[in-house]
Structures are given as structure tokens and as C-alpha cells.
């Protein structure tokens, strides 16, 4: 296909870039950065740039259920042109409550048209949890979340659950879970699902995964369905304050000498050791900072059931678990190995899961 033919028929990302005044060199540079962030070999950047530049507009349908819109806010907070906005601007976002111009029937019609026109080829992105107990708790155009999810998932190529709510149930699922909130993967069992948790997720994680899907297909996932490239390491293992943890230098409060000297925040509740995300390396707001760097411990927002995993301000070693079960001074003093903390946290989380009884209509005083 000659360049003249290709520009007449379908627009590719390559021609789109030229049209927007973004040079191939700049695009190659961004692909290098994404490849590096995803721990791909640096030579993958060239393949990524070549493949992506030939990509035609990918149809994306974004369904929003029981969510706070934070995930959308995160991905659109890109003030400077970066690969994130390039990729996001290039996909054909055929349905998105916040970003689409149409509303009402026109919006639903656009969604149905996209489903038909790109059957088997569109990417379904979901944010927000689904109320599985009572379909009436959350509806769009009179259609329950569950029904819409099942309908749209049927002909999707792949599903991306963005944010901890879609990935694991998130805030709505927290004790006492009044709506019976569940994750996308609890309902859809027959499609590849990529979980990108975080409350919200880091923007470049979102677009890095999209870029990977468009170039190489679905990335390698861990046992929670998260891309290993971004969620393979704990915050603790990449935290710049780790030398203080290793030396046993901790802040005991938020304004003491340790806090002012930037010491480890383990004792004021940091969940870094049991949290897997890219915050310590990729950081937030275009690499500006992340919670620990700003003086607040990690709250573990990319982990399942983090809302019920104990206080944000109590150390992992003391949380909601009986300390005498883990009677080691070493743990409290912070000379602990990460594994011990990890075991602790998993015990805490299974206890949290046991308390999740979805509320029934009868519980609320209604009649069955």
C-alpha cells in the first residue's frame, strides 16, 4: 500500500502524528520511555513505534458503573503532550459518560453502533464496581450495570478493569458492602481481563498497557490479573526511603524529627511492603512525587480489600491483627523482612473478606 493510498483510506497513528506535528523521533523517544517503564528490552521500542504507527483507530467502549470518576480524571490529567495523551487521543472512544458529547438515547445508540461495527474487535474498559445483589442499585438508561456489562463484554476483544473498584470491588465493596458490589472478573469469566488497580491508577500505567495491547497483545499478568511490568514490585522494594527502614530510622508521628528528616513511614502506617504498584518509580503528576515522598504512608490502594485491611495509620505489624500471634520485637522495630509483613497482611485480608455479607432487601426492611 503506497502512502497516498493509505492516507486516503484509513488514518493511521503515523499519519495522525505527522498531522499533529509530532515527529517520528519524538514518537520513538516516547516508545523508549514506555518500553523502559514496562521493563521491556530497549530494542522493543523500535518495534513498538513501527507497529503503533501503522495502527488504525482502535475502538474503545468505556463503561462506568459504581465509580467516583477518579480513574477518568487520572487519565485525562495530562497537561503536556505525552505518549499518554497521544495514545488516548488516537483511540476511538466510542462511549464514555464524562467525555462524549452525546447524551441520552444518542449516547446509548452510539454505543450499540460501535458494538455492531467493531464486533469482536473493540476493547472494553470498565471503571466502578457492579452491584451483584440487587440490579436496581445502579442503572444506566434503565439498564442494570450487570446486564450492560454482560451485553458489551460478549463481543469485546479484551476487557480492561481500570481502578480498584472494577478490578476488585474497591470502596463500594468495603464493609458492610451495602450494594453487594463485585469486580468485573466476578461476573465475566470467558474473556481475557487485565486488571489495572489503583485508587486511581497512574495514567502512564493505563496508557502503557494500552500501547502494549495494541503492539504485542496482552501483557504478562500476575495472580491478581495485573500487568507484571507495572505491578511486579512492591512500593517497599523501590522506595527511596528504604535505607532508613533498613537502618531502623522511623518517623513516629507526622511532625517529629524523623518526619522532618524524611525517615521511613512504617510506624505511621505505611503499607508499602504489601502493596504492588509503580508509584515509587513512575510516581504521580508526570513524575513529581508519590505519597511517601510527600510524607504520608502508602495506603495500599492497588490491593484487593485495602479499605478493610486495617487503619491507614497503624503499622502493618500492629494493624487489626492480634500482635501476640506475631510476637516478634523485630517486626515492630522494623528490622522485619518483607515476607513476614506480607503473611500478616494476607491473614488480615482473608478476615476482611469473611465480613462481606451483601445487604439484602429484607435487611433494609423491604419485602422480598
Amino acid at each position, binding site marked *: 500500500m503506497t502512502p497516498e493510498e493509505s492516507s486516503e483510506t484509513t488514518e493511521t497513528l503515523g499519519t495522525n502524528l505527522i498531522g499533529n506535528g509530532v515527529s517520528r523521533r519524538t514518537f520513538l523517544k516516547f516508545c*523508549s520511555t514506555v518500553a523502559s517503564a514496562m521493563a521491556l528490552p530497549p*530494542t522493543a521500542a523500535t518495534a513498538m513505534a513501527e507497529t503503533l*504507527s501503522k495502527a488504525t483507530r482502535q475502538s474503545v467502549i468505556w463503561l462506568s458503573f459504581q465509580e467516583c470518576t477518579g480513574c477518568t480524571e487520572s487519565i485525562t490529567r495530562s497537561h503536556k503532550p505525552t505518549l499518554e495523551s497521544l495514545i488516548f487521543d488516537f483511540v476511538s472512544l466510542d462511549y464514555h459518560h464524562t467525555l462524549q458529547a452525546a447524551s441520552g438515547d444518542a449516547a446509548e445508540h452510539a454505543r450499540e453502533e460501535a458494538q455492531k461495527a467493531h464486533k469482536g474487535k473493540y476493547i472494553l474498559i470498565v471503571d466502578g464496581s457492579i452491584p451483584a445483589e440487587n440490579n436496581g442499585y445502579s442503572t444506566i438508561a434503565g439498564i442494570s450495570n450487570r446486564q450492560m456489562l454482560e451485553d458489551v463484554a460478549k463481543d469485546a476483544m479484551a476487557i480492561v478493569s481500570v481502578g480498584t473498584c472494577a478490578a476488585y470491588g474497591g470502596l463500594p465493596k468495603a464493609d458492610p458492602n451495602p450494594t453487594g458490589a463485585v469486580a468485573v472478573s466476578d461476573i465475566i469469566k470467558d474473556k481475557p481481563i487485565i486488571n489495572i488497580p489503583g485508587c486511581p491508577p497512574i495514567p502512564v500505567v493505563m496508557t502503557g498497557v494500552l500501547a502494549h495491547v495494541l503492539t504485542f497483545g496482552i501483557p504478562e499478568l500476575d495472580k491478581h490479573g495485573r500487568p507484571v511490568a507495572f505491578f511486579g514490585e512492591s512500593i517497599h522494594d523501590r522506595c527511596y526511603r528504604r535505607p532508613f527502614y533498613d537502618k531502623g530510622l522511623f518517623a513516629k508521628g507526622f511532625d517529629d524529627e524523623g518526619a522532618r528528616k524524611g525517615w521511613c513511614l512504617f510506624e505511621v502506617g505505611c503499607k508499602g511492603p504489601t502493596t504492588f504498584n509503580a508509584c515509587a518509580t513512575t510516581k504521580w503528576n508526570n513524575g513529581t512525587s508519590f505519597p511517601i515522598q510527600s510524607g504520608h504512608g502508602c495506603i495500599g490502594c492497588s490491593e484487593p480489600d485495602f479499605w478493610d485491611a486495617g487503619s491507614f495509620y497503624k503499622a502493618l505489624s500492629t494493624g487489626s491483627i492480634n500482635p501476640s500471634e506475631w510476637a516478634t520485637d523485630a517486626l515492630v522495630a522494623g528490622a522485619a523482612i518483607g515476607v513476614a509483613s506480607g503473611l500478616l497482611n494476607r491473614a488480615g485480608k482473608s478476615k476482611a473478606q469473611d465480613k462481606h455479607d451483601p445487604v439484602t432487601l429484607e435487611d433494609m426492611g423491604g419485602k422480598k
Partner: protein
Amino acid sequence: MSLIDIPVKSLDKPTGMANAVMNELSDHLSRLADSGESHIVDLLSLPMTEADINELADMLGVGEVSATISGIGTSSIRETAYRGIWWVTHYGDDEKVVSELIEITQVPQILITHMDEIRHSAQSMAAVN
């Protein structure tokens, strides 16, 4: 108080990583000489401190070629004192380093103008003339 003021002593001495990287680069350069096969090393993916990266830069020295790309953020490409070993630094538009690569090659990929862009400018030029 800025990050620099926090006295984390572990980061300001070289750890010996630079020597390890030099070994690897030597292998790649020999392979390039024998078979023409290029390679790229991503410095930011390695556990290198700032001191290590500076030590590596000293070891590699500076060659006769330097180029700057001014796109969205600049990129600086310099050949080191070892011909065939290039140091490529990519900056974001906020002047922060986003990528630090060592390319073992005849010329880094990013310097070569892509044929798609040449076709596009050929059309533009023909249209005007």
C-alpha cells in the same frame, strides 16, 4: 526541605556497577565488530545510582560526535571515546531525564530520518514547487 537535604548516605558513592556495565558493553562492541549486530542498554532499568552513572560516563569519555534533537523535550546523542558506543539521553519537556540509553551501533536509530516522513515532506515540497 528538598529531597537533596535528606542525608541518605548510601547514594553518593559508586557501587561498582559501572565496571559491570563496561564488561557488558565490551561484549556487545565485540559482537558489533564481528557481526554488525547492534544492541541497546537501558541504564535506568539497572540498579545504578547517580554516582554509578557519572562513573560510567567518566570511563566512557567523550568522542567527536554530538547531536541534539529538539522535539517535545530535547534529546542528546553523543558518541563516547569508544567508537560505536553512543550515549543517548532523552529529556521530557520539563527538562527531567526520562531515558538514559547506551547504544552499541554504527548510528543510533533515532538519528535516522524515517521514510514515512521523507515521503510526506517530498509531497509537501512538490506541492509548493
